[in-house]
């Protein structure tokens, strides 16, 4: 976490550092026909290419060429497919099948979205998915936070053995125990019951690892002070540990919710009744029976919640991504 945050910070600084330079080409253009005295490409933190090389005559040309190429390639590779998805959902079925395809919908229409909404029963699916994701998140947080707190601050006997056994589950690829997990869920009668998703989601060794490591870094004095004031373990957790742990709670929360929303295989097996399916499973079951533009309409609607989450929590998500991996 700490190193992740540091990387993030460094990056921000770096971006702020070149903020002033971003206007350079415009300035140059404004200065008209006068022989340009090129502003150097500002380098706050040097990387493989040295600032000197970067600002040589050819270095600068190559840099701009590379920059433009990368931007174009990335846009084509990652934005064009999404553009195609959105415009595909605004075309008529005939136009979708047209060869060569049209770049813009001839008569943009929102009908496929409404048709998709009805055909896939997206309202129900979306409510289900959000319910499973948020319920799972709540349960997961209660279970994992209390466990990490006990392992970090109450230090019971065999605590390290338990932690080791929990982390060991990270070594087992989820697909491998899918069948026995399914059989267990069937045995317990949890088929088509949200708990069939929530219980397995809470058994998350990585969350416990991240939370425990953060709790370990909370100074002992802080907790002892609260204990002297007469606070019991629950009170300490609630009023001391949780408030200072907000950053890690945020990261764990976002990842838990996003993972639950994206999950496919377990919901495919556990939530089999059509009015209890998640949106991913629902789309996969009906996609063959509707027209292509309606499929795209469904996909766009499915994507919107995650894209909104990404816009809002971008910094947290990117910090969290490196949280576990760098020091882990």
């Amino acid at each position, binding site marked *: 976490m700490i190193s992740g945050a540091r990387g993030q910070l460094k990056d921000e600084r770096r971006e702020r550092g070149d903020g002033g330079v971003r206007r350079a080409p415009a300035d140059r253009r404004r200065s008209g026909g006068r022989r340009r005295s090129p502003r150097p490409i500002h380098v706050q933190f040097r*990387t493989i290419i040295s600032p000197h090389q970067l600002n040589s005559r050819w270095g600068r040309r190559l840099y701009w060429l590379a920059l433009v190429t990368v931007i174009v390639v990335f846009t084509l590779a*990652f934005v064009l497919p999404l553009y195609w998805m959105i415009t595909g959902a605004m075309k008529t079925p005939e136009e979708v099948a047209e060869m060569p395809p049209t770049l813009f919908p001839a008569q943009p229409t929102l009908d496929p979205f409404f048709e998709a909404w009805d055909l896939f029963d997206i309202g129900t699916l979306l409510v289900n998915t959000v319910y499973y994701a948020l319920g799972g998140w709540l349960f997961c947080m209660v279970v994992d936070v209390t466990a990490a707190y006990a392992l970090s601050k109450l230090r019971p*006997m065999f605590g390290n053995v338990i932690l080791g056994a929990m982390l060991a589950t990270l070594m087992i*690829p*989820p697909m491998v*125990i899918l069948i026995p997990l399914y059989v267990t869920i069937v045995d317990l009668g949890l088929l088509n019951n949200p708990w069939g998703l929530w219980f397995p989601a809470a058994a998350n060794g990585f969350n416990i690892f991240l939370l425990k490591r953060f709790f370990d870094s909370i100074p002992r004095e802080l907790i002892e002070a609260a204990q002297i004031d007469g606070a019991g373990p629950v009170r300490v957790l609630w009023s001391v540990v949780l408030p200072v742990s907000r950053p890690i709670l945020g990261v764990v929360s976002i990842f838990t919710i996003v993972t639950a929303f*994206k999950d496919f295989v377990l919901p495919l097996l556990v939530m089999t009744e059509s009015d209890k399916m998640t949106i991913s499973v629902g789309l996969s079951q009906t996609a063959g029976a509707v027209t292509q533009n309606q499929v795209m309409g469904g996909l766009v609607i499915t994507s919107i919640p995650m894209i909104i989450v990404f816009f809002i929590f971008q910094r947290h*998500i990117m910090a969290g991504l490196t949280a576990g991996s760098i020091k882990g």
Partner: protein
Amino acid sequence: MGILRRNLTAYGFLCAALFCFAVFAWYPMVREFILSFQKTDLINPPEWVGLENFKGAVQDPAFGEAWLNTVEFTLLALLCGYAVPFVVALVLNELRHARAYLRFVVYLPVMLPPIVAVLLFRWFYDPGPGLFNQILDLVNLPPLAWLDSSSTALISLVIVSTWMNMGSATLIYLAALQNIPSELYEAAELDGAGVFKRIRHVTIPQTRLILLLMLMLQIVATMQVFIEPYMLTGGGPENATVSVAYLMYQFAFSQMNYGQAGALGMMLMIVLLAFAAFQLRTTREDAA
């Protein structure tokens, strides 16, 4: 607080997690072992069949093909999904502009549910009006059959998989690259090292641990490939895209032979664990 009381409170806090782990993480591992020696359809009571399930799994016509495909898929995915993000991260780290935008777009597909990427690409792969063949047509290349031909189906799955997963690896590498002290590059440059020598002697050694860790994670992740063959090809054409995980799913839910699926799962688990243990040992030796 006495020791006893402290322990009691601690286990009070732990009991929910212990229950979840015991029933839904630890027990399934044991259950997999039991299951692989039983014949069960979850309706009739299970009976012990010894090694029958393993025999049945090995003798399945798709067994060899599934392992070959999985290995091939993993190797191809490594070529694309392991090397490409590192190179992309290297380039991104050199750029001084548009960084926020580039990071945002490369991670965007990771945020989408996999079903979106998969269904979207199914349309792109359409041999007729699909986007890819139309682009090929635009540059005067002959159309490809993509998912419908056993020679291109697997690589088509790798492309989808790379597209939707490479964002996270890229950002992890990028963070690792930013932690390399710039003095090292300066020193290398003073010693007369060119750009490629700097990459080889500074960048790669400095990011070695994360590179090894990601290699392991990625291999384990791609060995479990399921949603791509499940949604895009159904294992076809002619078993060209049956993966081990997909075969396991078929044993369990098409043939209702949970024991045989468990046996195949055991084999996959042993392979992956052996691999992870090996990798962990080399990493540790490396770090020491």
